[in-house]
């Protein structure tokens, strides 16, 4: 756990910080006319700072849509979402991009450029957070994070030299390298074996406890439910009452 001590997450200094994410009466539909499909119905949701929330539920329940709206990956149709005190409703594409830069995204697929080494991938990610640090500093930072994920030997390796699980961990490192205050993850452990999945969940838990990061994760992997502060169930476009 002490290895994470040097990763400082930038949380507000207020004594009682506002939630990292607040969603109010969020509704969303796809298509129009007879093909229109309402996927979210007046969803209210909050993710506190330093909280780890797992969103689960059947396929088509609206989890992904809610996640993409919170991640400023698509525009809001109705309702309000505040992410790190920025209102997403009516936000211009440039503003949405700025919000996304403060979020670490972990996707089901690693989506790594086959041409880039792990360091080059992380280096590209570092650029987006307002300028990449110097080469040496960037390498130190990348090496430290990779060692936490058990990939210290793969700093200069390309994806073809890695297993699927290792690639997924590089993708996780890419999401974490800029120490984002919010992490949005979609089935991050789906491609990992139990041991590696445990390692990743431990790291995410440390980010919450030590770094104060807020995590919203969609997963069906009930082995990791115990790592979350809350597990929310989504059904038919609504968050079901806590059991």
């Amino acid at each position, binding site marked *: 756990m002490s290895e994470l001590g040097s990763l400082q997450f930038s949380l507000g200094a207020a004594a009682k910080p506002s939630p990292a994410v607040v969603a109010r009466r969020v509704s969303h539909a796809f298509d129009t006319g007879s093909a229109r499909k309402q996927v979210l119905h007046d969803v209210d949701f909050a993710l506190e700072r330093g909280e780890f929330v797992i969103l689960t539920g059947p396929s088509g329940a609206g989890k992904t849509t809610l996640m993409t709206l919170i991640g400023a*990956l698509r525009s809001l149709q109705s309702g309000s979402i505040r992410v790190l005190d920025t209102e997403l409703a009516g936000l211009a594409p440039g503003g949405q991009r700025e919000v996304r830069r403060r979020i670490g995204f972990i*996707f089901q697929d690693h*989506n790594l*450029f086959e*041409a*880039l080494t792990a360091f*080059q991938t992380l280096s590209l990610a570092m650029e987006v957070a307002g300028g990449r640090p110097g080469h040496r500093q960037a390498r130190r930072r990348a090496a430290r994070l990779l060692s936490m994920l058990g990939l210290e030997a793969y700093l200069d390796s390309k994806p073809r030299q890695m297993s699927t699980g290792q690639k997924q961990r590089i993708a996780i490192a*890419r999401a974490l390298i800029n120490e984002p205050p919010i992490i949005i993850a979609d089935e991050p452990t789906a491609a990992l074996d139990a041991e590696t999945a445990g390692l990743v969940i431990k790291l995410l838990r440390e980010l919450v406890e030590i770094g104060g990061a807020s995590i919203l994760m*969609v997963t069906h992997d009930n082995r990791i439910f115990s790592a979350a502060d809350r597990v929310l169930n989504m059904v038919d476009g609504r968050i079901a009452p806590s059991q």
Partner: protein
Amino acid sequence: MLPRIGLGLRLLLHNRARLAVASASVAMGVVIVFVEFGLLLGMLDAQSLVANLVRGDLLIMNIARVNLHRWDKIDAVRLEQAAAVPGVARVTPVYEDHVGLRDPDDKRVRRIILYAFPPDDIPFKLADPAGISHALKISHGFLYDRLSRPIFGKFKMGDDIQIDTIPLRVDGYVSIGADIVNDGNILMSSGDWLSRSPDAKPIMGVIHLEPGVSVERERRRILTSLPPDVTVLTPAETAERESAYTLRSAPVGLLFAIGMLAGLIIGTINCYQVLYNEISDHLPQFATLKAMGFSTGSLRSIILGQAVVLSASGFATGLLCAWIADRYIAAQSMLPIRITVPSGLVVCSLTVAMCVIAGLIAIRRVAIADPAALY
């Protein structure tokens, strides 16, 4: 939006087989442009070859002779009148005609251009003028242009070759060159030529001015002194006029421009196809970069970087292929086809422009990379 060449290069280098095919695709357009450009420049150089060879300050010709391939002769008296103008040192008559050279091997007669002039006053910049002068004065034979197309047969110095049915001795060689219309040249003394063709008129006169005389002032003076049936140009103006005529009147300029345009379009389409596939294959990666907060402009700069890399590799490959093709075409056509530094720079700029345009078209595909679709 500056192209990210380093990242573009890394992404392209990853799949070397694809990069090789992509470079070859772009190079195809480059070769077409280079060869068309080389042919055009070679043709223009060839058409103005004689003008560039002239050794003198001004040329006087029949005003009807709007290009050097016309046969409008000038009255010899006009050359004498020009020579009488103050400031003119002398005027060298140059005779030009077609003659038939009989191949000593297959006995076929082929047309060749004959230039005749006084052996003491060689009007062309040729190597070893003293030797040429001596050869033309002593033997009454002819000098053969070794850069003529190899269609006239094989013969050596001292052989008697039939020129218009009269045997004449090969007294030596000069280097002039063929052009699009003429396959080769021979040189003869004007005395010998006039003894065979007493009514021959000069095709032009090469004017040598007194030292220190203004060329422009002297030209005006000659033109005002002589009847208006002559034109007076510097050799450089004659060469420019020849190039302009070739480009304009003979529609070769248009033909080669269309050829070059076709090469550029082919290169652009090929480059676009390569970049389109490259983007399509990496759409999830580009969408991920978008999700991370990269702007569409940043992604475009990666594609532009790839376009610049493709233009460089395509140009290098194309330059090599075009150099080989030009050598072959030059050897076959005996035209001065070559790749020069200026023509290389022009084609290089066109290649970069071609690939950047292809990149700008392909870039639209990056805009559709939807990060929301990643979930």
